[in-house]
C-alpha cells in the first residue's frame, strides 16, 4: 500500500509542490536530451547512408574533443585548432572509408558493426597514446561560448539555466536545420537518401558510394565534434564521455534508426524521462537508475512500435 503510494502518488505531489524544481529538472533533461540527440544524429546519418551501425560514434565525440583541446594545448589558437580538428575529422572519415568500409563492402551488417568496434578500440588506444588518459578542460570560453547562468524566479524558487546549455540547445537546432537543408536541397543529400533506399538507386543518381560514405562519416564527425564541445564544456573531456554513446542507443530505438527528427525527439524524451525518473523515482529504487531507465523506456515502447517513432513501417513480403 505504502509502496503504491510512493510510486504513483508521492512523486506527483512533489512536482506540484515545487514547480521550480520540476522546471529545473525538465530543463536539465532537455539539455541532456539534446546532447543524446546529437550523438543519435551521428548514428542515424551513417546508418541511413551505409546501413552501418556505427558503434564508434561515441568515441568519435571524445576523439574530436580531445583533438581540439590537444591542439590548443600545443599553442594553436582556438579557432585555428577548431579548423584543424575539422580537418582531422575529415581525414578520419576518409581513412575509415578507405581502410575499413571499402574492403568490407557487401559484408553482413553484423560484420561492419564489429568493424566499428575495432575502430572504437583503435581510437581509444590512439587517443590515450597521443593525449594521455587524464581528463582535460574544454576550451569553451576561448571558442566564445558563453559562461555563467541566467536565473529567474519562479513559484517561490529559482530556476537557473546555464548559458552554455542554452548555446548547446541553439547549436543543436542549427545543426539539425542545416542537415535537413543538406538532405532536402543538395544533390549529394538527395543521393544520400537514395542510398538509404538502395545502393543501386544511389549509383543511378550518378554519385559513387565511396564519395557518399566519406561525406556521411565526415558529417557524423562534425556532429561528434559539436557534441564533444558542448558536453566537454558542461563537464570535462575524458574517455568517461564514451558512455554517453551507449546512452544514445535507446534514443535510436525510440526515434528509429533512419529518422533524423526521430533522433531529436527521441533524445529529448529519453533525456527528460531519465532526469525526471532519477529525480522523483530514483530514491525509492536506490539511485543510479538512469543507467537503465532509458533502455527500459525504449524497450517498453518498442513492444508497441517495433519500427520506432518515425522509422518506416516494415511490411513483410515473401
Amino acid at each position, binding site marked *: 500500500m505504502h509502496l503504491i503510494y510512493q510510486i504513483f502518488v508521492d512523486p506527483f505531489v512533489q512536482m506540484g509542490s515545487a514547480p521550480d524544481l520540476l522546471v529545473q529538472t525538465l530543463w536539465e533533461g532537455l539539455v541532456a536530451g539534446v546532447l543524446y540527440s546529437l550523438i543519435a544524429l551521428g548514428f542515424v546519418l551513417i546508418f541511413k547512408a551505409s546501413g552501418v551501425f556505427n558503434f564508434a560514434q561515441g568515441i568519435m565525440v571524445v576523439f574530436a574533443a580531445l583533438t581540439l583541446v590537444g591542439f590548443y594545448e600545443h599553442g594553436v589558437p582556438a579557432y585555428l585548432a577548431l579548423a584543424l580538428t575539422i580537418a582531422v575529422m575529415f581525414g578520419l572519415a576518409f581513412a575509415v572509408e578507405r581502410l*575499413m568500409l571499402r574492403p*568490407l563492402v557487401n559484408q553482413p551488417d553484423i560484420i561492419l558493426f564489429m568493424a566499428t*568496434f575495432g575502430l572504437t578500440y583503435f581510437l*581509444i588506444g590512439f587517443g*590515450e597514446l597521443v593525449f594521455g588518459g587524464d581528463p582535460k578542460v574544454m576550451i569553451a570560453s576561448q571558442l566564445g561560448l558563453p559562461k555563467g547562468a541566467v536565473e529567474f524566479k519562479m513559484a517561490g524558487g529559482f530556476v537557473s539555466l546555464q548559458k552554455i546549455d542554452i548555446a548547446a540547445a541553439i547549436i543543436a537546432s542549427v545543426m539539425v536545420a542545416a542537415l535537413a537543408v543538406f538532405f532536402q536541397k543538395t544533390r549529394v543529400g538527395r543521393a544520400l537518401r537514395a542510398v538509404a533506399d538502395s545502393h543501386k538507386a544511389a549509383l543511378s543518381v550518378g554519385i559513387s558510394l565511396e564519395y557518399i560514405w566519406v561525406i556521411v562519416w565526415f558529417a557524423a564527425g562534425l556532429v561528434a565534434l559539436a557534441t564533444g564541445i558542448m558536453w566537454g564544456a558542461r563537464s570535462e573531456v575524458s574517455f568517461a564521455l564514451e558512455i554517453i554513446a551507449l546512452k544514445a542507443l535507446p534514443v535510436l530505438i525510440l526515434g528509429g534508426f533512419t529518422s533524423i527528427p526521430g533522433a531529436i525527439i527521441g533524445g529529448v524524451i529519453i533525456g527528460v524521462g531519465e532526469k525526471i525518473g532519477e529525480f522523483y523515482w530514483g530514491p525509492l529504487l536506490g*539511485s543510479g537508475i538512469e543507467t537503465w531507465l532509458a533502455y527500459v523506456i525504449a524497450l517498453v515502447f518498442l513492444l508497441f512500435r517495433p519500427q520506432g517513432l518515425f522509422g518506416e513501417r516494415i511490411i513483410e513480403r515473401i
Partner: protein
Amino acid sequence: MFYREVGQYKTNYSADMSVMPLLQDRVGIGIILFIAVVIIPSFGNAFFIQAIMIPFLVFSLAAIGLNLLTGYTGLLSLGTGAFMGVGAYACYKLTTYFPGVNILIWIVASGFFSAAVGVVFGLPSLRIKGFYLAVATLAAQFFLSWCFIRQPWFYNYNASGAIEVPTRTLFGIPITGATASDTARYYVVLGVVVAMTWLASNLVHGRIGRMWMAVRDMDLAAELIGIRLLRTKLLAFAVSSFYCGVAGALLVFQWYGSAEPAVFDVNLSFFILFMVIIGGLGSLTGSYLGAALIFILPIVLRYIPPHLGIPIRPATVDHIQYMIIGALIVLFLIVEPNGLARLWQIGKQKLRVWPFPY
C-alpha cells in the same frame, strides 16, 4: 593429407548422421582431450593453468553460449555479460543459503536462473529484429549490472560490494575458494566445459539446431514450414543464457575467486561477442578458436615487448595494445569475415583432397 577416407562408408543413418563421421576427426578430438586431461595438468605450470587455461575454457563456454544465440539463431545480443553475472550471483546466493549442497550442482543450477532471466529479456525478440534487438538486450545488460551494484542483497551486504567465493569441496578436495589448487579448479572447469560442449553439439546437429538455423536464415519461410518463431527464439535465449550463466559462475568460482560487479559490465558482453565473430558465427569450434585468439592475444602483446627488451611504460603498452587489437579486428574481418572456423574448414578440406588443390 592425413585423411584416409577410403572404406569409411556408412551402412546406417545413425552412423551417417553422427557428429563426427570421419575416423581421423575422432582421433584428433581424442588427442586433444588427452592433452587437456593428462599433459597440461602434469606439465603446465601454475601460471599457465590458472591464468590461461582456466579463463580460456570459461570464455569458450560463454562464447558457445552466445554463438548458440547469435551464430545459430541469428539473434544479436549485447547482454552476455549480464547473463554471466546472473549465473555468478545466483551461484553465490545459492551456496550461501545451502552451503551443504555440492557446489557443482549449484554451478549448473545457476544456469537455470540466467536461462529464466534470458527468456524474459528475449521476449521482445518476437516483435523486433537485428540491431533493435541488440539494443534491447543492452537494457538487460544495464538493468542487471545496476542490480548487482545497487542491490546489496546480491552481494550479501559485503562492505566491499564484491562477492567472495567460499571454499567448497568435492570428494573432500577443495575445488573453490582460496585453498583450492589450480589443478583441482582446472579439472572442474574442463569437465563442465567439455560436457556442455558435447551437449551443445548434439543440440545443433539435431532438429532444434535446424530450427534455429532456419529461423536465422529466413524466419518467414521457417514459420511457413511450421516452426513457431517465438518458441524457437525463446528456447535459443534460454539455452544461450544457461551456458552464459554457468560460464559466469565458473568465471567467479573457478577463476577470480572474488568479483566486483564491474566484472560483468557491458565490456564483457562485447569481449565475448568478439570471440564469437572472430571465431566464426555458427561454429562451436569457432567459439574455442575465437576465445583463444581474443583472450590470449592481449596476454601475448603484453609479454612480447619486455621479452624483446623494449622499455615501454605499462600505460603505453596498454594504449598500443588497444590500437593493435582494434586494427587486428578490422583487418581480420576484412581478411576472413567468416571467422577462424572458416579458415579451419578450408584447411581441413585441403587436407582431405590432398594432393589435389580442390
